[in-house]
Every structure is written in structure tokens, then in C-alpha cells.
């Protein structure tokens, strides 16, 4: 494996200063930084072969269509899906979930049906279902969590019933870092004949995702959280579902034949890709996935676990610092509160020390309500972070404590 200084050299932004201080970037849960190779690949599209995909008969259009379809194949192999046709490009995780919520709702949901989510969900995996439920007269059921921030499986098993039409849960909580037991969740749902969507926004970048092994029905993730460009995401869906679902958007390229009387739809995956897709970002995402593979996903997982352990130990030793989310299985995300100090004050002050963290409810208000807190400070790490940066954060927190108490 490359050593850490070589890895950091791949990400030009990590070298910059903010307010005259070296940047310590601990907001990877919100978005990750990009390696030079990803920036180059997007640039290369525009510089040397930009043409609209699937439309032209000319050289450039052919070349970008080819690169776009190669990107789809790259995504397929990265998550080990069965077929290329099962990979739909979207605008991001939010776009993917909204799409499934709409199409699945149209096709399969009726009055009184139930969708199961967990308390740990990001708003992107709550609101689309709520909107669909309102339209269809369906009901959301929510898996509770314990004091460690882990979902309570026994309660989940009780929620599964003949009314359940779909289960949609995250692979890992963006607010607390908890890794959810998705295998257990999926196998229980499948024995009740219920399909499962996994929101992989906080999962795909932290280890190996093997769709064939986890056997979920839908899987959603964002490019920008796995070192790729913003504005591109992925929806994986099992072929049988994607074939039976209606499209979630209408437009060009997703059609077979259009008359004003009736339109027939194109085949998979194009049926779900209306209009001009963000093909340069898809090509950049493929490059990002190749970069991740070159570092090695086992290596990333090992290194991030080491950072998580170190940061948890270091931060726990700070007087008055309370960590929320104490599961044994976590992504390298630590959510905490400083006794008597508002998260906003902590965040604004750390920012001026060059430390980028996130404060507030992290778009997961139900999690905050569960723990009776108004918000937390969240440090979300990834493999390019260092123990020295964690030390800088710990020192910064001590300074914040001095200033505000």
C-alpha cells in the first residue's frame, strides 16, 4: 500500500491552508476530496472527447458514449452486481431513493401498506417515502435504536408483517457512524418476501460492497462521497424489479417509440435515464472507483478502523466530551457533544483553526430526537486522514473548552 504521504499527495486540496492554518478535513461524511486522477479524467472529457452520449453519429459522441458505458461496467464490477443493465446512473443517493420511492409506489403500494425504515435514516431516506406514503395512503414503520445507537433487530422482526411492502435502511448512519446489520435485515425481509433498499451513501466508501453477497434488491450511493465528482450517483436494482417498475422520469433517450397517443420505453438501463445524464461525472466516478481499488478496499478499511480507534480513545479522554453512537461496528465517524457548549460555537471556532467538521442535526433529526439532543459535532474521517490531524482536533477542542466555559 502507498504510504500516507503518497496518498495525501494524490489529493491536491489536502495541501492547502485555511485562515493561514493547514487544512484538517474531517467532513468526509458530507463529501470527500478528489484525487488528481479524477480531476484529470473529468477535464479530459471536456478537453478531448466531449459529445452527447447515445445520440450522435459522430466521433466524439461515440467516444463519450463508450466511456460512459465503460463507467457503468466499472460500477457493476465494483459492487459485484450481476448485470450492467442493473446499474442506473442518477444525480446521487437522494435521486436514487426518490426514483425508487416514486416508481415502486406507483407500481406496488396501496392504501394501508407499510414501508419499514430505521430511526438512523438520513432525511434522504425518510422524506421520499413520506411523500409516497401521503400519495398512496401508506404508512411508515420505524425500527427503534438502543442507547448505543444500534437498531434493535428484535423490534424490526416484529414490524415485518403481511402489510410490509419494502424495507429501506442505510448501510451506516451518517449521524452516529453505526454500521447496520444489513445481512440480517435483508434475510428476514426476504423470508417474508419483502424487497430491501440499502442506502449505501455512508457505506460504499468504507469497505467492500458485494451485491451478490448481501443480496439486496436496490442499492443507492453517491459519487462525491467516494472520491468522485458531485452530481452523479448510482441506483442498483435487481433486473426483475427494474423491469417491472415504471420509469421515474420521462424524456429523451429513455424511450423506444413516441407518438402523442402512446410512448413505449427503452430497455434497461436506459428506461431510467431520461435526458442528458451527467456523463463526465460518471466517467470521473469510474476513475475514482479505480483509484479506490488501487489503494485496496481492505487497506482502506484497516486504516480507517485504526483511525477510528485512535480518535475514539483520544476524544473520550477529553473531560466533558460525550460521544453519541457507541456501537462496536462503526464507520470512522464520531459524533459528540461538549458539555455546556453549543455545537455551533465549537464548529465556528474549530473552523478558524483550519479544522473542517460538521455541526447540527446532520439531516437526521429523528436520531437527534432519539437522544434528546439539539445537535452534535461530527468528525467524519477517511483513509487520507492522519493521527496527527486527530491530535490537532483534540487540542482544538481543549481550546474551545477554555474559550467557552
Amino acid at each position, binding site marked *: 500500500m502507498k504510504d500516507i504521504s503518497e496518498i495525501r499527495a494524490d489529493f491536491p486540496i489536502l495541501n492547502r491552508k485555511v*485562515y493561514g492554518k493547514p487544512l484538517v478535513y474531517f467532513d468526509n461524511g458530507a463529501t470527500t476530496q478528489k484525487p488528481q486522477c479524477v480531476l484529470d479524467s473529468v477535464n479530459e472529457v471536456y478537453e478531448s472527447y466531449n459529445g452527447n452520449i447515445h445520440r450522435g453519429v459522430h466521433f466524439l459522441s461515440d467516444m463519450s458514449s463508450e466511456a460512459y458505458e465503460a463507467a457503468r461496467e466499472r460500477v457493476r464490477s465494483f459492487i459485484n452486481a450481476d448485470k450492467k443493465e442493473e446499474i442506473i446512473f442518477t444525480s446521487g443517493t437522494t435521486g436514487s431513493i426518490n426514483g425508487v420511492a416514486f416508481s415502486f409506489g406507483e407500481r406496488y403500494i396501496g392504501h394501508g401498506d407499510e414501508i419499514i425504515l430505521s430511526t438512523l435514516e438520513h432525511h434522504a431516506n425518510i422524506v421520499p417515502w413520506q411523500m409516497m406514503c401521503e400519495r398512496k395512503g401508506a404508512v411508515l414503520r420505524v425500527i427503534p435504536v438502543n442507547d448505543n445507537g444500534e437498531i434493535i433487530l428484535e423490534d424490526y422482526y416484529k414490524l415485518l408483517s403481511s402489510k410490509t411492502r419494502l424495507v429501506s435502511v442505510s448501510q451506516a448512519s451518517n449521524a452516529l457512524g453505526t454500521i447496520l446489520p444489513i445481512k440480517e435485515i435483508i434475510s428476514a425481509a426476504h423470508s417474508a418476501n419483502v424487497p430491501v433498499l440499502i442506502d449505501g451513501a455512508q457505506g460504499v466508501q468504507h469497505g467492500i460492497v458485494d451485491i451478490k453477497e448481501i443480496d439486496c434488491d436496490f442499492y443507492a450511493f453517491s459519487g462525491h462521497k467516494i472520491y468522485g465528482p458531485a452530481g452523479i450517483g448510482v441506483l442498483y436494482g435487481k433486473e426483475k424489479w427494474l423491469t417491472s417498475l415504471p420509469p421515474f422520469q420521462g424524456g429523451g433517450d429513455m424511450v423506444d417509440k413516441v407518438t402523442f397517443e402512446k410512448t413505449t420505453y427503452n430497455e434497461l438501463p436506459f428506461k431510467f435515464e431520461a435526458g442528458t445524464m451527467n456523463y463526465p461525472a460518471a466517467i470521473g466516478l469510474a476513475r475514482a472507483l479505480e483509484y479506490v481499488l488501487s489503494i485496496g478496499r481492505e487497506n482502506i478499511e484497516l486504516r480507517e478502523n485504526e483511525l477510528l480507534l485512535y480518535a475514539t480513545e483520544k476524544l473520550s479522554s477529553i473531560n466533558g466530551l460525550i460521544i453519541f453512537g457507541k456501537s462496536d461496528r462503526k464507520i470512522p465517524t464520531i459524533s459528540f457533544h461538549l458539555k455546556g457548549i*453549543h*455545537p*455551533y*460555537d465549537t*464548529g*465556528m*471556532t474549530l473552523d*478558524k*483553526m483550519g479544522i473542517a467538521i460538521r*455541526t*447540527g*442535526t446532520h439531516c437526521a433529526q429523528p436520531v437527534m430526537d432519539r437522544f434528546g439532543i*439539539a*445537535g452534535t459535532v461530527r468528525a467524519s474521517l477517511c483513509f487520507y486522514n492522519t493521527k496527527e490531524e486527530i491530535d490537532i482536533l483534540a487540542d482544538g477542542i481543549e*481550546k474551545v473548552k477554555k*474559550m*467557552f466555559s
Partner: protein
Amino acid sequence: MTINEVQNNIIDEFSQFEDWMDKYSLLIDIGKELPVIDPKFKVKDFLIEGCQSKVWLHPSYDGNLISFTADSDAIITRGIVALLIKVLSNRSPDEIIASDLYFIDKIGLRQNLSPTRSNGLLSMIRQMKLYALAFNAKNK
């Protein structure tokens, strides 16, 4: 002092410091001088909610000048609120409506006013002007 004279004084005060920690220390001290809102007004009607921090703002009008009391749950926000009150409290409605608040930008706190930051400050300024408009309308 006019609104702009008060603003210029604030800019001078902050320009003494280069280091952000010193600026924040000053802001924390200024927050302590805030005319604190009567707890009975610390209710929903006077709450300006942001997703990061909360601000409570209460106006009173004696037929001539408007004065404000306020509070916030975050100390840095409270400091900025105190600055806004220094500038806009005990002013006529017309003065408040016509005011151009440039000091926030000049002392480097613009970041706190971005609409997405939603800490309630931008809404607070809007609310202060709305109160001034309402009191003005009542007068006429």
C-alpha cells in the same frame, strides 16, 4: 452617534486583531453586554429559528424609538446579535429601514450570514426591519 458611526467604531475595534481567536474572544465579551430578553418573551412568537442556533428577539417601541432585547443559545451568535442591537437599537423606524449593515462583512463575519448557514442571523436582520416597518405603519 449615527448608525454608520457605530458600525465604524465596531470595525475599528475588530481591526485591532489579526487572530481569529482574539476576534472570537472579543465577540464573546460583547455578547455579555447584550440587553437580555425578558424570559417571558423567550417563546415561540419571538423565536427566530435556524438549523444551527436559535435567536429570540423582542422589540419595544415608545412612539419614537425602537429598542430591542434578545438572546441566543450559541455564544458566538449571541455576540453577533449583541453587535446588531448596538447598531440598530434605540433608533427610529425610518433609520432602521434605511440602514445598510456593512460592518458584518467588514469584520469578517459574513460567513455567519450566508443563507444556508441558517443560524437565524439573516432572518433576525430581516425581522428587525419588519418590526420597524410595522411600527411605522401603525404611526400613519
